């Protein structure tokens, strides 16, 4: 039913000459699309890595034209799951033919929303992106295996989150973009993994200085695909 409404909406927008577009987030690994559970080798070494889980929130999408806010998505919370490529594509329905040259969004969930109680959709706590012993959303979750990890089964687990004061892990990303039907944003996951000494650090599962450090590094892995 929701899908039907969505298609009707798209149809009406198109009919009126209005603009429907989408933003696509592509998790990448060494230059090509990330394949979960595939054994990758790190640059110039025999060290291997497999990503088994990659889930993260994109929120608060805003579109700018020369620093001026043109459009802000309402209720903008999207859970992207590398295991489900249908979550990569985020349709945006502008109210008019809109020109913009910059996009701004957050990786993770802002603190006001973290204080907001039970929520549905992608924010439903059944999505596996919510901490229960000390509550708050997990902004970015990556799990896998590497021969470098000294943990059981050579696993690594990084759940980055935290919204309070000095442990805030929310990241705001700004990218220059151009109008087109599909705006593709690549995320170089390998670049981020390279920031971690997997032989020394193989897990983060609570708000901490380390989570803040690694979250800050996330801001460097986004680029607009040409």
């Amino acid at each position, binding site marked *: 039913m929701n899908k039907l409404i969505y298609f009707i909406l798209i149809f009406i927008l198109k009919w009126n000459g209005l603009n429907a577009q989408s933003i696509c987030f592509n998790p990448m690994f060494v230059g090509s699309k990330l394949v979960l559970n595939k054994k990758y080798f790190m640059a110039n070494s025999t060290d291997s890595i497999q990503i088994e889980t990659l889930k993260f929130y994109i929120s608060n999408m805003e579109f700018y034209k020369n620093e001026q806010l043109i459009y802000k998505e309402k209720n903008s919370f999207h859970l992207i799951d590398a295991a489900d490529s249908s979550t990569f594509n985020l349709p945006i329905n502008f109210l008019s033919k809109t020109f913009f040259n910059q996009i701004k969004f957050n990786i993770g969930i802002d603190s006001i929303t973290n204080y*907001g109680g039970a929520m549905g959709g992608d924010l439903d706590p059944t999505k596996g992106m919510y901490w229960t012993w000390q509550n708050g959303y997990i902004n970015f979750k990556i799990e896998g295996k590497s021969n470098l990890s000294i943990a059981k089964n050579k696993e690594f687990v990084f759940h980055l989150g935290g919204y309070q004061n000095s442990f805030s892990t929310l990241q705001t990303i700004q990218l220059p973009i151009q109008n087109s039907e599909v705006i593709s944003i690549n995320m170089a996951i390998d670049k981020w993994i390279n920031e971690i000494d997997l032989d020394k650090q193989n897990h983060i599962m609570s708000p901490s200085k380390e989570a803040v450090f690694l979250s800050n590094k996330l801001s460097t892995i986004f680029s607009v695909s040409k």
Partner: protein
Amino acid sequence: MKIKTIVISCIIFLLFAFVSEDDFLFTTPKNWPKPVYNFKKNQLTDSKILLGRVLFYDPILSRNNTISCANCHSQYTAFTHVDHALSHGIDDRIGTRNSPALMNLAWHQSFMWDGAINHLDMQALAPISHHDEMDENIKHVIEKLIASKIYPLLFYNAFNDSTITGENTLKAISQFMLILVSANSKYDKVKRMEETFTNQEENGYKLFKQNCASCHTEPLFTNMEFNNNGIPIDSLLNDIGRKRITQNNQDYLKFKVPTLRNIEFSSPYMHDGRFKRIFEVINHYTNIQKSKTLAKQLQKPIILSSNEKVDLTAFLLTLTDKDFLFNPKFSFPKEVLLK
């Protein structure tokens, strides 16, 4: 005469038409602060409260369907666990903290002894997921609810939608917890001039205001703050309190100030349940050992004679609210769960 009756009926009808349902389901007691819970985002209805109550009493929330919220939060003991210093969960596992008494939760901004939870809706997730409590996860709980005989209808009645979600489950549990208001103790009746204290209770109240009220502030009998009340750390539990959450040394050994309402029934006391009797608690406060983060309210020694201790206890017993402890609206919903 007839016209007058019609006019009055109309006025009464209009009055009821404009008063929303939740005004009847939840009322702020006179002279109490405004609740902090945002009822607009989760409007109370009878059917949602019933659903929440059924969930509260149903062991379906635990991994092997043996432990319900009520196991550690029993109504007759002010929704805490009598005779259990530490929470006692699934497979006879024992937790590290005393299960808190549940009442007047609509006025709380944070939950748990260390304030780890920032919203009532999210509170239930902690015991559901805790290894020593229910050892379950919310996703699996929802699957069990969908497959159950009773819940699809209860959710449909509550939300006009038989799709069961984590959001609706948590909101329903909140609704039941929100109506657990205790405001009809002898103390409350005295405040409303319906009853009077005995001389002993009156003297106890005076001593209470001088020595205890700065933290156990009326009318909720907690200031909602986190404090180190001077009890030495238990070397086995090694519980550092709020510091675990904030990672701030200033919060070392600080725990949330609990309410004193229904204290007669909520034994044992303190975050680790180390005191069984009220007199042990009072003796602790008259014998404080100084420590680095000790509450400023406890810096000056509290001196009470043995008679004064008895009077203070007499006052504390006026905080017992039998209407709350035995309210059938809060009890096991046998009409649903034993069907």
